[in-house]
């Protein structure tokens, strides 16, 4: 029975995934038809403005024709107003668009009518609408089901409802799903994913959430182990700033030029060096933290506070207080490019998460960290070099902050010593704690941290998406985190476990 459950999950997941892909393909088919027939790419935003806002066939027809004929699908959003000409970039496209709009919709339909050739009928419109909404739900749900089935098969564990309910990660996942469901109720197409051929990249809110959570997830991998050691690392945000500042400084530095800087579209030093130096410096700074904590036995909060305070000063001195910008395209790829049809930061994050997980769980390192976190003295007595463990963990956190800093500065293509990585330390710590790692040290969960960081980003996206003032994000964050933390608090979980036990006992008694 239990073996079967894995298979059921896997098959159901595959079916749902297939349904999602079918929906996705039908939308892509429509877009391809537009591209093949009119040489125009029909963008996501245009799709939404044409198909989602109006329910009337005549309106959809007019909008669609206007959007396709105007040359750029994007300008359809403005074009729907009718009177003003869309700000098309190409001159011929613009004249065509104004022509299509000065005539009325039936006239355009008679003249060539993209709507009739590509869409054909109004029932197709409603089916496209449904497909657009459903693919967003089917794709992630199917992927999740498949993943759950695979994890169960790989772990070979029996499904135990009680232990699942007791796990902290379960609550984190439930919280994430609840937030997403609220999003879905407010915007039915919140989950929709679309493909942008010009960037070779998939777009959508879900992908955006994972993409934007990359920095915190990467730092969170190190922070999880720092917290498992019973400490915290407050310096990560400052290291992000240092790494960005160093990268930009090296990229723009040109000793041969009288201005000592390049125009920004090429580098004098090899690109590898531009990436390696910031990472090395961050690694060294992490080592410095580790030395203070491991060797001098300083308290982690205060020891890392030193670099947190002075790190931004160092970043300012590196760039001499300037804010460099760059246009160097290999650097842009790190934060804004695409890899395997996904934004590059996602791929980098996946590689790092998998790498750290393998390193920690396939070697004894993770066990050592947990042991040092539970009792440093007794693990030293049992032959674990706790100093080395502390050094490695803090150095790793430094290195990961450096990577995160490169991604951040590549996103903004500039360095910002004051705001880069601002509050990253708190976000990283929160994502670790939401993920179920206890602040007192000991057991840790890297998967939980990934979920925690995605939850934090989901809250932020939620807040942005629904037009709540950005500054008020913190209040929402606080409320949701408060709920998660209270649910995870030990007394509450003990109380709930006792309640379920009592119920089970009562049930058993009744049955007897």
């Amino acid at each position: 029975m239990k073996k079967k459950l894995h298979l059921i999950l896997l098959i159901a997941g595959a079916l749902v995934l297939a349904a999602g892909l079918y929906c996705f393909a039908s939308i892509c088919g429509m877009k391809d038809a537009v591209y093949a027939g009119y040489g125009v790419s029909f963008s996501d935003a245009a799709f939404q403005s044409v198909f989602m806002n109006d329910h009337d066939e005549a309106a959809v027809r007019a909008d669609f024709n206007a959007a396709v004929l105007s040359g750029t699908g994007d300008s359809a959003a403005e074009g729907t107003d009718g009177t003003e000409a869309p700000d098309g970039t190409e001159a011929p496209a613009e004249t065509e668009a104004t022509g299509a709009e000065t005539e009325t919709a039936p006239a355009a339909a008679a003249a060539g009518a993209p709507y009739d050739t590509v869409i054909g009928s109004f029932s197709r419109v409603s089916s496209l609408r449904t497909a657009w909404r459903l693919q967003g739900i089917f794709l992630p749900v199917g992927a999740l089901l498949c993943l759950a089935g695979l994890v169960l098969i790989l772990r070979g564990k029996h499904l135990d409802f009680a232990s699942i309910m007791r796990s902290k990660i379960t609550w984190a996942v439930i919280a994430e799903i609840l937030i997403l469901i609220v999003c879905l109720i407010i915007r039915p197409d919140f989950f929709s994913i679309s493909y942008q051929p010009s960037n070779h990249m998939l777009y959508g809110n879900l992908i955006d959430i994972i993409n934007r959570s990359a920095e915190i997830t990467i730092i969170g991998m190190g922070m999880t182990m720092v917290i498992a050691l019973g400490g915290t690392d407050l310096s990560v945000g400052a290291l992000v700033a240092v790494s960005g500042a160093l990268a930009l400084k090296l990229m723009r530095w040109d000793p041969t030029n009288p201005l000592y800087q390049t125009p920004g579209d090429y580098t004098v030093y090899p690109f590898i060096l531009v990436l390696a130096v910031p990472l090395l410096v961050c690694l060294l700074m992490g080592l410095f933290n580790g030395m203070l904590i491991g060797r001098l036995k300083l308290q982690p909060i205060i020891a890392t506070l030193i670099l947190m305070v002075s790190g931004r000063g160092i970043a300012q001195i590196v760039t001499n207080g300037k804010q460099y910008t760059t246009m160097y395209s290999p650097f842009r790829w790190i934060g804004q490019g695409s890899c395997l049809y996904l934004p590059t930061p996602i791929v980098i994050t996946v590689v790092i998460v998998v790498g750290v997980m393998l390193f920690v769980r396939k070697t004894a390192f993770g066990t050592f960290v947990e042991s040092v976190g539970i009792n440093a003295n007794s693990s030293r007595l049992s032959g674990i070099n706790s100093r080395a463990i502390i050094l490695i963990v803090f150095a790793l956190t430094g290195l990961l902050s450096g990577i995160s800093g490169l991604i951040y500065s590549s996103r903004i293509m500039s360095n910002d010593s004051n705001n880069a990585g601002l509050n990253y330390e708190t976000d990283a710590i929160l994502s670790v704690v939401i993920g179920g790692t206890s602040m007192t040290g000991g057991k840790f969960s890297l998967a939980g941290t990934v979920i925690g960081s995605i939850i934090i980003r989901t809250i932020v996206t939620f807040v942005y998406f629904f037009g709540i003032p950005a500054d008020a994000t913190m209040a929402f964050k606080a409320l949701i985190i408060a709920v998660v933390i209270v649910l995870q608090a030990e007394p509450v979980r003990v109380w709930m476990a006792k309640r379920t036990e009592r119920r089970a006992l009562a049930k058993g008694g009744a049955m007897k």
Partner: protein
Amino acid sequence: MSVRTEKRQSLLTRIMNPKYMMVYATVIIFLIIYAYGAIRYGKSGFTTLRTFVNFFTDNAYYGISAVGMTMVLITGGIDLSVASVASLTGMIVAYGYERMGISPVITMLFSMLVGIGLGALMGAAIHYLNVPPFITTLTGSFLARGICSLISRESISMNHPLIDQLAGTKITLYHLVDGEWVKIKPITKIDMTVIIFIVMIIAGTILLQHTRFGRNVYAIGGNEASAKLMGLPVGRTKIAVYAINGFCSALAGIAYVLVVKSGWNMALLGGELEVISSAVIGGTLLTGGVGYMVGTMFGVLLKSVIPAIINFNGTLSSWWGKIATGGLLLLFIVIQRLVVSYTERKRK
């Protein structure tokens, strides 16, 4: 029940008690840096009384908050919400008067209540739900800052006679020259925020050193489990400490309003770490059980001496201030570490 019932020791042994070492170290380093400034920039006015009083004035609001923070740190906790609560206080006072026409007296009292309430709530969560103080107060900080932003997202400057009067209340210092009281030159004034700061330091010292509550605080910081077994009211004391800290943060917010006369949702961003590091530089151990108000006061003074020296130098950029603060912090915790390990070895 008083400290004096202990066996009397000679004055010297009492003064040289290793538990005061950290405070002495802070004072000595303050004096060294001050002496350096005096030798280097004595001619440009570093040694005047006004410069010295300015050390208090510059960071008075951090100092007020550090009084509460010291107590929290002594219990072995931490409070990251102080700056947000202070900013919320400023916002309540400014918004209350400018947009709703409520007298600042009422809004000040209200914001103190808010501070005490939030502090007590966080203390209760820390004690009863067993949530780490770091996380609880971080959430509290987000909440306060978020509410602040919900109230208003832009800076509200306020103009009220009471605030102006409070901010204008200054004690001018005189000194005796040939039997006549003359204003000290350059004219030195102690303003309201400094008075609050010093009063709070004195009140904090009395509370910590001469009351049962203060001894409970030290006992909890020393070892919470044994304090509980001894029958001390651990929960009540911890909640009270966080509530007092909330009150101090609200008071610091009011002091900040007196300085800037406005409320801003992003005011004092990162101030909590300034406050914590002041207390730590002043000799308070983050593990709890050790800490003195006088040390905290010198910690705050140290934090304003360094920028003053950088100001007097004139060529160093303010970034060096950050690095110097970091270096100073490093110096202190290393000294702390040495002192602690020295006393531990001595005890053995």
